[in-house]
């Protein structure tokens, strides 16, 4: 959390770090508003990839030679940077995974080994499939029961209902920090404290919060926190699972293989200590090392500055979009990230998305991997424009103009 920068948010300088933002789509300048799916990457990150491969590419941890040493140092440096970024206590509490989905599956499998029939697991209505299906699979495997925290029409979780669900059978509570479909920012610290009252472990899906918020896992006091690099301006194929040391020590390993063992005989295998116990196989070395460049770059901008700028976009965009006739915004929580999920009266989200694409505007349409949430809202899907730190008010104007152009075509 070296988020002490107070430099003004120079949007042109920022955009110049993203070559892809210069490109045209269908003859128009790209307006990329699908950051909830994945963000673009600053040059510092892609340069770090090339530099890794051209100077120190090597397998890590097991080599006595120079390249392996250099690669291992750089690899472990990212672990330390990520630890600092989320304010974890120990760097070995940071486990590298493929991404949020892999992180959640890791916990669901390993924690699952401690779950007994009749135990209860609580998730929320706001969850992404990646934070639903692993728990369903676990409940089925172990005979546990899945409970769901309801929400109100603004997309705010019902705290009274949550309290009522918690009881001595509750072993785990899992929910996202920010909803990818509605933008709701959940009160993680408060909910975690409630869950801890019944000694339930708390797993947070941080896929959508890491790019937008200053996350402090010790302040939040969560037990696990799942992260994807690609959604926070980092490379694809890499993510992390933060876990409190005591939990990580208690859980059995998930995958078996190289790196994660201490000694192997055909009769008996003993496992390595943290973090290696949970990192079987050759890791995504390039991805880990290049991720550090994204983290450094975010910290130079300052997470607080990013949040503040994006909140401006949220305010501006909400007002601008509501000027469009027949537009309904889904997700109107008072505490919300810069994400607009909406529908146009009588029109199908898919038609809108298709035509906006013709105008170079990239939005996402559909259920956003939150089918139960869509069912709750009684819509088949929404149009989602999710902001990144490089989006501008002018781009929001372009979106609004685009909507005003395509809606009449469809009526």
């Amino acid at each position: 959390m070296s988020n002490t920068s107070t430099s003004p948010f120079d949007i042109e300088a920022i955009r110049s770090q993203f070559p892809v933002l210069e490109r045209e789509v269908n003859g128009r300048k790209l307006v990329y508003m699908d950051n909830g799916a994945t963000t673009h990457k600053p040059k510092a990150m892609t340069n770090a990839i090339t530099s890794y491969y051209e100077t120190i590419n090597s397998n890590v941890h097991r080599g006595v030679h120079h390249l392996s040493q250099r690669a291992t140092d750089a690899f472990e440096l990212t672990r330390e940077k990520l630890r600092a970024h989320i304010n974890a206590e120990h760097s070995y509490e940071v486990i590298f995974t493929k991404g949020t989905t892999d992180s959640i599956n890791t916990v669901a499998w390993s924690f699952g080994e401690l779950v007994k029939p009749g135990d209860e697991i609580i998730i929320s209505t706001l969850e992404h499939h990646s934070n639903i299906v692993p728990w369903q699979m676990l409940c089925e495997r172990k005979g546990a029961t899945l409970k769901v925290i309801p929400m109100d029409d603004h997309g705010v979780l019902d705290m009274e209902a949550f309290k009522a669900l918690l009881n001595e059978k509750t072993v785990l509570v899992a929910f996202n920090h920010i909803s990818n479909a509605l933008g709701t920012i959940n009160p993680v610290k408060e909910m975690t404290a409630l869950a801890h009252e019944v000694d339930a472990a708390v797993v947070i899906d941080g896929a959508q919060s890491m790019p937008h918020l200053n996350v402090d896992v010790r302040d939040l006091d969560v037990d696990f926190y799942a992260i994807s690099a690609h959604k926070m301006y980092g490379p694809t194929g890499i993510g992390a699972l933060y876990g409190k040391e005591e939990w990580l020590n208690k859980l059995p390993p998930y995958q078996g293989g190289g790196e994660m063992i201490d000694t192997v005989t055909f009769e008996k295998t003993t496992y390595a200590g943290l973090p290696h116990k949970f990192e079987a196989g050759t890791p995504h070395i390039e991805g880990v090392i290049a991720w550090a460049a994204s983290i450094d770059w975010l910290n130079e901008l300052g997470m607080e500055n990013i949040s503040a700028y994006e909140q401006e976009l949220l305010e501006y965009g909400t007002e601008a979009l509501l000027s469009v006739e027949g537009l309904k915004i889904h997700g109107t929580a008072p505490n919300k990230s810069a994400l607009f999920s909406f529908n146009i009266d009588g029109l199908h989200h898919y038609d809108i998305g298709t035509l906006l694409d013709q105008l170079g505007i990239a939005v996402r349409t559909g259920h956003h991997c939150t089918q139960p949430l869509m069912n709750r809202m009684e819509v088949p899907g929404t149009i989602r424009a999710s902001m990144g730190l490089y989006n501008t008010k002018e781009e929001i104007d372009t979106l609004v103009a685009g909507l005003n152009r395509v809606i009449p075509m469809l009526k």
Partner: protein
Amino acid sequence: MSESIAERTDDIVDEFDMFEDWMDKYDHIISLGKELPLIDEQYKVEDNLIKGCQSRVWLHADYDGEKVQFTADSDAIITKGIIALMIRALSDQTPQAIVDADLSFVDQIGLKEHLSPTRANGLVSMIKQMKFYALAFQSKQA
């Protein structure tokens, strides 16, 4: 609607050639969607749903022993326009003609290129399903 499939698809290609840009093509597709005759409500059932589309597509086929008649619907208007095109190309033809149909017009009018895989897969599923019906009628006949 009694020319050969080849003649019909040539017409479609000519028609799309007139449009300068893609917005105009979409405008046309949308109007085709709006003109698509309504499918009988009884056929808008799960069984007639085509997988692989972001929007929902219902496709029904009738066979009078000689020719196949397709009717369809979708909740998205662009998708509906695209089915309308497919129906215009393939409906009221013999099962054999449908099975054998060369559907390269889809590429020629640029649809495949301009549709994302999600959508293109929907189109592919649509074509597959139409040919599948034809094949089924053909084998019933044999």
